[in-house]
């Protein structure tokens, strides 16, 4: 049976909160999993301003994850669900789907590079254009 990394919604009505779990594919969503890897709170939290940390207007979504155990489970072939793929994509542990939040925010940990991210993406786009132009030239040469 396939072992999956997926989200289990154990919280009450109107209060979404998920456990990130390792469970057998066929088991019920909220049943006792093989292992709990962490949590995901989808409700955006307002950051606390302190004397030492200035106010941040941007809200954050809190994810807690045991990265070592996650890497282990991925290593032995556990399949992440779509939701967990998004989270792992942000950490660079899984290839992010194009167009998703993870891909925009971080591909392979690009977010950790900070401001370099946009430059990198631009670089990729330039490379791709160059490749296309080269292909066109080759086609033209072939025609000639």
């Amino acid at each position: 049976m396939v072992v999956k990394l997926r989200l289990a919604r154990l919280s009450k009505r109107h209060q979404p909160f998920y456990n990130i779990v390792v469970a057998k594919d066929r088991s019920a969503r909220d049943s006792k999993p093989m292992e709990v890897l962490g949590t995901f709170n989808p409700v955006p939290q307002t950051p606390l301003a302190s004397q030492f940390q200035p106010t941040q207007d941007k809200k954050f979504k809190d994810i807690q994850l045991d990265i070592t155990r996650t890497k282990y489970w991925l290593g032995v072939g556990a399949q992440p669900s779509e939701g967990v793929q998004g989270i792992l994509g942000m950490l660079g542990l899984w290839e992010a789907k194009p167009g998703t939040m993870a891909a925009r925010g971080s591909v392979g940990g690009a977010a950790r590079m900070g401001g370099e991210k946009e430059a990198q993406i631009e670089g990729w786009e330039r490379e791709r254009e160059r490749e296309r132009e080269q292909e066109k030239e080759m086609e033209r040469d072939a025609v000639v």
Partner: protein
Amino acid sequence: MAPRTPSSISLLTSSPSVFTHCSSCLKKEFSSSQAPQTRLRRQMFAWLEGPGESLRYPLPNSTNYLSAYDKRGKLLREGEDTPESREDLRPFPLNQHFISESILSEDLRQEIWRRVQVEKKSVRTVSVELGVEMRRVGAVVRLVELEKRQRAEGKPTAIPYARAIHQMVPTTPFEPGKITPHEPINDLPVHPLTDQQVFYPTSESRAFNRTDAGRVFSGAPRLPDSQDVAQGGNPVEPWRNIKPEKVGRFQNETDVLKPADARIPHPHLVAFEKDRSDPDLRRKEEEIKARYNQRLLDDAESRARARQEKIDRDEKRKTRVETSRWQFVVTDVSMSSQATGKDGRGAKAPGMRYGVPHEDRKKGQIKIPTRVEV
């Protein structure tokens, strides 16, 4: 024979009676003259017109408590301008032990705020300088900031009310040349751990001091000889002893009770006092002062360093991913068996627990938060 009418009709017609025309007859008010006064009421008016007359227009800058006047309503102290003594500050004549304590005057509040926010002095320093407890210094700074913000926003403030209250209660003044201490600043509340009586057998030759007692109370092992002053060791100085020490099993850790010298709000003052009584430092006021200031600086630095280290340590475990709408914060946590416990129900591990019932609807569950994070 007159026609009979049903009894219900006779009730509807209003014939003059006690019930319709004399309600006062039913209320025991048989006389229209003024009611005779009770004894207590008579005494009250006698007092208001007699000794109480002097309190009708209260003296300015005085609390005007009853204890300041004699039975005939004469002011006990010599003149109206003489300052109030401690005897005058007892508002309840039958409770001689209650003395009204002073509150901070407006000048003192503003001075505290200025020293902390403008001169950028530490709360600890300002507390020692002005004789105001550290917690109160913090509260004053927050309140004055709030007041300033409200003014800036054009919100109304209850200044006349505050002024009226300040005239009625004793206040601690602020004069630049002469500092009046507001309250004792180095008080130590009784720690609940010390309530118990402990029978602790130890050898008669051992010098058992307050550090050892604190360790016994909190069930911590004995200090190594290198740190035990009784064994010729070199202990940490109380003012430097700010690092918390934990004892107990994982998830059931408690702080080791430090000696009172380290737990008081201003352990530096003890070191300062020791320096002053040191015969080697006699008539070296400058050096004593410099030492004291250096200790304060060292303390502030080490605290700031510890705080920064903690922030860095926490930040190191986090990956922040920016998206257009919000930030995703992924914290690397440990879900090891140590955190979740052997049965997987450890309360310290993150996430909802399995096999543990929600008892929030159970009778007697307290839902009031015990702390507020701001």
